[in-house]
């Protein structure tokens, strides 16, 4: 027997959580002792450690702006990079995957660099290879997701989690190429703009430059990645960091001795620029934000925002909808079935059409051939008649000739006879005379 608890009873006797929309309401319970499920986050973490983490960074910037050096400095290793020429006819992307390990955490890091970006005379198509690469990674993930027999937990996620866009330190404003490229990418990837080679800009110029860049980005509607503010543990530090965007960085893998320590720095005749000194550049801030604090959030944003957008657009393109014609929710399965039927019907129709066309063609050909045959026959008859006529004519001629011949021979015989007669008559006369 079911017992129902009335709403009014609940409202007076049980303190409720504010009812959230679309959530099935569950009443809160208090525990009498320690159960032990507070170890769930630890279990999750341990599982993740066993699995290892995956992080993919895309670096976009002109040749020679310091992308490889910054990556080397960020991850404290030496990725084997070779210098690229300035004369690439088209923008290409080069992806390299590395397995790094720090204490017991394994990271599979993929660094994708643009090659030849900004070098061509005509840069109108420069952003396209980058957009294509990002879409390709989303596409392969989508394919894996839609497979019947799939292995998502083993899948090597190659989607781009963070995009570092390197801005040249002109000190004035963004280039038009920068604005166009970032606009095309802001709905596909988390963009983190950085000012490269920041040791060429003095402090006051840098402040003005940063303000100019941010205002240009806002006025052009480019959405860059904002560090998340919803988690209280990191909200404070993230808010301050958001105010320092874009980070002005300097990269170096060489060590210089300053005081009694060896630090990563660049040595100039007029001083030493220390990479990890916060007064000199924002490198430490970038490392904090990118790796220490927000790496997981970047991955999550990529999956829940950018990838979902891509997936939605792609599936809508293919004709799938979440609601059927009467606005009733339609599952993917049903839509797929409907599509399949449609496709098969279409196929059948096409097949029938083709068959019909084929039959018609055969008929046409047949009648054509028959026509030709009749034609030929007619001509043959005609020729035969002609032949017969000519033959008759020739026969006639032959007969006439024969007649002529026979009459001629008759006349000759007659003439001969006459001659012979006259001879004998003359001979007789001579004979008589002689006697």
């Amino acid at each position, binding site marked *: 027997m079911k017992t129902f608890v009335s709403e009014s009873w609940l409202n007076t006797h049980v303190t409720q959580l504010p009812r959230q929309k679309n959530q099935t309401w569950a009443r809160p319970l208090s525990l009498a002792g320690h159960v032990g499920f507070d170890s769930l986050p630890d279990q999750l973490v341990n599982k993740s450690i066993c699995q290892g983490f995956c992080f993919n960074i895309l670096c976009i910037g*002109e040749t020679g702006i310091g992308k490889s050096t910054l990556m080397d400095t960020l991850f404290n290793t030496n990725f084997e990079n070779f210098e690229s020429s300035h004369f690439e006819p088209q923008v290409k992307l080069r992806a390299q995957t590395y397995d790094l390990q720090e204490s017991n955490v394994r990271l599979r890091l993929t660094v994708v660099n643009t090659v030849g970006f900004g070098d061509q005379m005509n840069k109108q198509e420069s952003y396209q290879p980058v957009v294509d690469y990002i879409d390709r990674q989303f596409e392969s993930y989508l394919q894996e997701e839609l497979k019947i027999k799939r292995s998502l937990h083993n899948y090597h996620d190659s989607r781009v989690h963070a995009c570092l866009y390197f801005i040249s330190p002109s000190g004035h404003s963004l280039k038009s190429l920068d604005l166009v490229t970032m606009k095309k990418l802001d709905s596909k990837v988390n963009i983190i703009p950085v000012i490269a080679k920041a040791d060429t800009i003095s402090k006051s110029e840098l402040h003005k430059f940063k303000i100019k860049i941010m205002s240009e980005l806002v006025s052009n509607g480019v959405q860059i990645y904002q560090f998340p503010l919803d988690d209280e543990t990191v909200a404070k530090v993230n808010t301050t960091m958001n105010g320092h965007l874009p980070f002005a960085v300097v990269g170096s893998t060489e060590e210089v001795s300053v005081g009694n320590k060896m630090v990563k720095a660049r040595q100039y005749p007029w001083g030493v620029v220390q990479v990890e000194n916060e007064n000199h550049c924002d490198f430490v801030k970038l490392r904090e934000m990118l790796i220490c604090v927000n790496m997981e959030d970047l991955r999550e944003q990529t999956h829940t925002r950018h990838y979902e957008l891509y997936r939605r657009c792609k599936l809508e393109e293919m004709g799938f909808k979440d609601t059927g014609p009467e606005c009733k929710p339609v599952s993917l399965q049903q839509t797929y079935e409907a599509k399949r039927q449609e496709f098969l019907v279409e196929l059948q129709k096409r097949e029938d059409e083709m068959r019909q066309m084929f039959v018609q063609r055969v008929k046409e050909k047949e009648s054509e051939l028959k026509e030709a045959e009749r034609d030929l026959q007619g001509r043959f008859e005609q020729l035969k008649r002609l032949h017969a006529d000519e033959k008759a004519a020739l026969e006639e001629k032959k007969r006439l000739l024969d007649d002529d011949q026979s009459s001629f021979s008759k006349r000759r015989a007659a003439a001969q006879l006459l001659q012979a007669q006259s001879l004998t008559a003359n001979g007789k006369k001579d004979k008589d005379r002689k006697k």
Partner: protein
Amino acid sequence: HTITLPKPEISGPGLQMSLIRGTDLFGYIGIEAVLDQMRSKTMKAGFEFNIMVVGQSGLGKSTLVNTLFKSKVSRKSCTPNYEEKISKTVKLQTVSHVIEENGVKMKLTVIDTPGFGDQINNDNCWEPIVKYVNEQYEKYLREELHINRKRVIPDSRVHCCIYFLPATGHRLRPIDVEFMKRLGKIVSIVPVIAKADTLTIEERQEFKERIRQDLVDNGIHVYPQKEYDEDPEERILNNSIRESIPFAVVGTDKEHQVNGNKVLGRKTNWGIIEVENVAHCEFANLRDLLIRSHLQDLKDVTHNIHYETYRVRRLNESNMNFSEPGPLTMSVF
């Protein structure tokens, strides 16, 4: 005492030339005073110098020109409502000043090329510049061919073109190669590495070597050209210049205190970059080249070589069309 004249050399039909050395003269004649006369005449007349700056926006062209002439000569500093907009096409803009130092007056014209290399599609971005340079030669040529000529022909020809290379540290880019190939034939190009405070000394040396190699590989002739060295002394001097181009420069107009002296420099959190210190950057070398030692040579090269090439080409062109009298011949006859 007697003067022994050396054997006279016959240097032409009926012409006898003899060489009399200064120590053989009887007394002081005063020939060397002609140098003073020349000096005072030129001081009265004043000099003209036209310099063109070419490079992408943000490379520090205006700052460098201001630093070179120690005054606000760039267009940015003169126009009251200067806006840092990226123009859609390359438009050349000129600004002229008269500056004076120790009685010597110079009319300095700075030709700026905003929009060069800033577009997304930079095909043929050098064409407006080539057109401008040729137009100045044409103007001069017309004046020269007049029957009634002015005493002093106003000279608006480009004497020097400073090309700013961004300090990437690698090599020349396609746009650099294309521009310098085309313009190296009609004007004296001086390439400089802009904002060189982003390169360490080793990086700077490697970069320069690679650029010099690229220039040779592409057949680009920059100032000072080897073919125009007139004597061995000049060759030695120019060779040392050729070994160190392109100059790595840093520009600024701010002064700071260093060791009790006021120097021009850029102040950063890690040190002060002294612009005129040759250990820091090569600005001083560039300034000496352009202004203190080779200014007149630049003008001479422009007049004797580039302008003459243009003139020969132009006159041949109009001579070839006998049937249609070109505008040139019309004005002459």
